[in-house]
């Protein structure tokens, strides 16, 4: 089993190496049109075959671990009770050794299935979405590398090994957001994502160190079994929470995610919706026994703020991808809330179903954007006749996002709300209220995006010039086959995955959240019916501008952090050029000035030199006689 897990991690890595090195070589190194096409084709084959192999192996692992003899209250332990662990080697560091090892258990297999399914869908989808892009080989190789890193995080048995994957994911995210770096805004978004997540990752690394040094081992099982003192646990988990907030885009480190939508849409689907942002939630679930109540309360407060704020921000956006980005933040906050309520069960359930339906939504949005040539809702409308497949699949996605039965979102969101309702957490009421209101707002923004995209009249116009590298040309047809297939594939889990949780349903509670969601959706629908041309976001009234700007948080960060740091940096540069360099240059000038005095003696007359010598000898002799 461990060999299979290692292969699952290594195959995409090998595909990444092959895609980077082997897609142009041998043959076709020169950048002609024909060679570009061949390189793209070869890169696509590398990436897709590795993704298929990883998916097949993961399914085999699932079959191996499955059984009905499971016990415990965690649903993955119930379905997938098997587990295995293997250590390749132990690296001695002089203090605490690092054991390079993998671990397979129900949680990791479940998450790995999500990752490999979405990765495969995205790889296939990218073939159509980025047809003719000259950097497609590196793009697909980075996706493979990302997949490998995420799977390493999922299967790692040692916190430092996990951290390696964690950081590679951050790197891939940076590289892929900046895929179209010709546009300055894209590369800035990439840098922003990198810096903000790095901020959290520093805290995460120190959290790992705290845990490792307290427990005397970096192996996750050892740490969980170590029975650490509460103070250490609070410190360590608070630090870990920094990394979780950074990667999972939780308040206050969430600001990078909406900007990360500058990347190609499949990347948003894979990294910034389904998998990488789920890594934070996954880590908390993986280390859940370590999290003491105070840390969970902090997480809960952040989640309560984040879910409602992000949902309101999503309601006011005009960019379809930014709506989905804010909705991702909001849904991730749901998972965090479930964790805070003490139920990793519900969190992972929602993580899995959210991974499926959010990837579906993003890929559909990509198809729409590919079709329309614009991200803005105001440029869309009436697309349901032009793109029937996308319409139906995206409808499933939105229904899952709103939590309408029978989609997966209905079951998983109900599990979250139920977990919050039954929790013993001191902030239970805050979480419950926030979750219910957010359910309503989610219904509202989902129905708004749905109506504005697919209904109303068409006002699609072809753009004069496609953006660099993109196929933004309106041709009035459904998206290419390579894009439609993954969408249809992902629609199945988005629709049906929830039924594994049907046994644990609590129907009254589900009915309440359903009613709230329908209420939110209904208000928006009535507003839209009365004026189909106007944006239903006007319902927010005076709050519309703050919501559209995501409550000015970006501006606040710019004013409070970015600008002081920049001016500090400018001050440092000034000090360097004027004080440090000035001192060096000044000392040189001073030496030259002084040397002009010394030069007066050096007039080339040997007799003068001898005179000076004699005078010196005389002085020494007199001195020696007088004081000697």
């Amino acid at each position, binding site marked *: 089993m461990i060999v299979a897990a290692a292969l699952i991690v290594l195959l995409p890595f090998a595909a990444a190496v092959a895609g980077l090195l082997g897609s142009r070589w041998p043959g076709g190194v020169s950048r002609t049109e024909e060679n570009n096409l061949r390189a793209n084709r070869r890169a696509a084959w590398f990436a897709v075959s590795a993704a298929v192999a990883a998916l097949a192996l993961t399914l085999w692992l699932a079959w191996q671990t499955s059984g009905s003899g499971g016990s415990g209250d965690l649903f993955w332990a119930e379905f997938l009770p098997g587990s295995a662990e293997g250590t390749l080697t132990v690296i001695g560091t002089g203090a605490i050794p690092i054991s390079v090892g993998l671990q397979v258990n129900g949680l990791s297999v479940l998450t790995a299935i999500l990752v490999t399914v979405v990765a495969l869908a995205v790889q296939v989808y990218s073939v159509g979405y980025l047809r003719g892009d000259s950097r497609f080989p590196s793009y697909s190789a980075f996706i493979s590398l990302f997949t490998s890193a995420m799977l390493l995080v999922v299967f790692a048995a040692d916190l430092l090994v996990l951290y390696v994957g964690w950081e590679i994911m951050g790197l891939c995210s940076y590289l892929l957001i900046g895929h179209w770096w010709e546009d300055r805004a894209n590369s800035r978004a990439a840098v922003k994502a990198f810096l903000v997540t790095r901020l959290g990752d520093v805290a995460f690394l120190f959290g790992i160190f705290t845990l490792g040094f307290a427990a005397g081992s970096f192996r996750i099982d050892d740490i969980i079994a170590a029975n650490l003192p509460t103070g250490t646990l609070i410190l360590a988990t608070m630090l870990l929470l920094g990394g979780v907030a950074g990667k999972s885009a939780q308040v206050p480190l969430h600001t990078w995610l909406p900007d990360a939508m500058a990347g190609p849409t499949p990347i948003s689907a894979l990294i910034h919706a389904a998998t990488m942002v789920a890594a934070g939630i996954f880590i908390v679930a993986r280390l859940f026994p370590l999290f003491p109540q105070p840390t969970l309360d902090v997480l809960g407060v952040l989640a309560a703020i984040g879910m409602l704020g992000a949902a309101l921000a999503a309601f006011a956006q005009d960019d379809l991808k930014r709506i989905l980005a804010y909705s991702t933040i909001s849904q991730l906050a749901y998972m965090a809330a479930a964790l805070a309520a003490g139920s990793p069960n519900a969190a992972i359930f929602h993580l899995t179903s959210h991974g499926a339906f959010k990837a579906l939504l993003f890929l559909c949005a990509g198809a729409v954007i590919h079709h329309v040539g614009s991200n803005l809702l105001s440029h869309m409308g009436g697309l349901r006749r032009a793109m029937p497949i996308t319409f139906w699949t995206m409808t499933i996605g939105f229904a899952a996002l709103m939590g309408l039965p029978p989609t997966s979102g209905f079951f998983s969101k109900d599990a979250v709300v139920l977990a919050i309702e039954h929790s013993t957490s001191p902030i239970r009421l805050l979480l419950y209220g926030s979750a219910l209101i957010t359910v309503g707002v989610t219904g509202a923004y989902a129905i708004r995006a749905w109506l504005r995209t697919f209904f109303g009249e068409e006002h699609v116009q072809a753009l004069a010039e496609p953006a660099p590298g993109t196929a933004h040309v309106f041709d009035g047809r459904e998206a290419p086959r390579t894009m439609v297939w993954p969408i249809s594939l992902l629609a199945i889990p988005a629709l049906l995955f929830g039924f594994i949780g049907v046994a644990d349903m609590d129907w009254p509670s589900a009915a309440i959240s359903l009613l709230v969601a329908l209420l939110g959706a209904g208000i928006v629908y009535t507003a839209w019916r009365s004026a189909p041309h106007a944006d239903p976001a006007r319902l927010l009234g005076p709050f519309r501008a703050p919501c559209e700007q995501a409550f000015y948080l970006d501006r606040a960060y710019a004013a409070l952090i970015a600008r002081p740091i920049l001016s500090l940096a400018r001050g440092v540069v000034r000090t360097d050029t004027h004080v440090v360099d000035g001192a060096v240059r000044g000392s040189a000038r001073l030496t030259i000035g002084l040397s002009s005095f010394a030069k007066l003696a*050096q007039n*080339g007359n040997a007799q003068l030199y001898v005179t000076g010598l004699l005078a010196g000898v005389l002085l020494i002799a007199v001195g020696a006689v007088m004081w000697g």
Partner: protein
Amino acid sequence: MHVVYPAVVAALLFSIGVYGVLARRNTILVLMSVELMLNAVNLNLVTFDVWLRDQLHGGQVLTLFVIVIAAAEVGIGLAIVLAVFRNRQSIDLDRLRDLFEPPNSSDPDGSQPAATKVTTGVGPE
């Protein structure tokens, strides 16, 4: 004879030699002044050899050495003077100033190698 007389004569000779080395402009005369200084030393050596009644007469032996070396030195010195004269048609010490540092050659970056500055100049004619 009291030791002070030859000592004073030697001191006078040495002083004349020093004056000549420091003040004369003609290179041959400077060489001759050097000889004067050496001879002052010789005189001192002989004097104190006698005065101290040295059994081995080290002072006299050393004097012979000095005379031989002085002869060799004068030979080399005159050869150099001759070579200088052939090159420059002058043996005026005041004009032999190739080691002179030009007053405003301050070049802080050292963009010009210092060696060229010294060797290319023939001295202010």
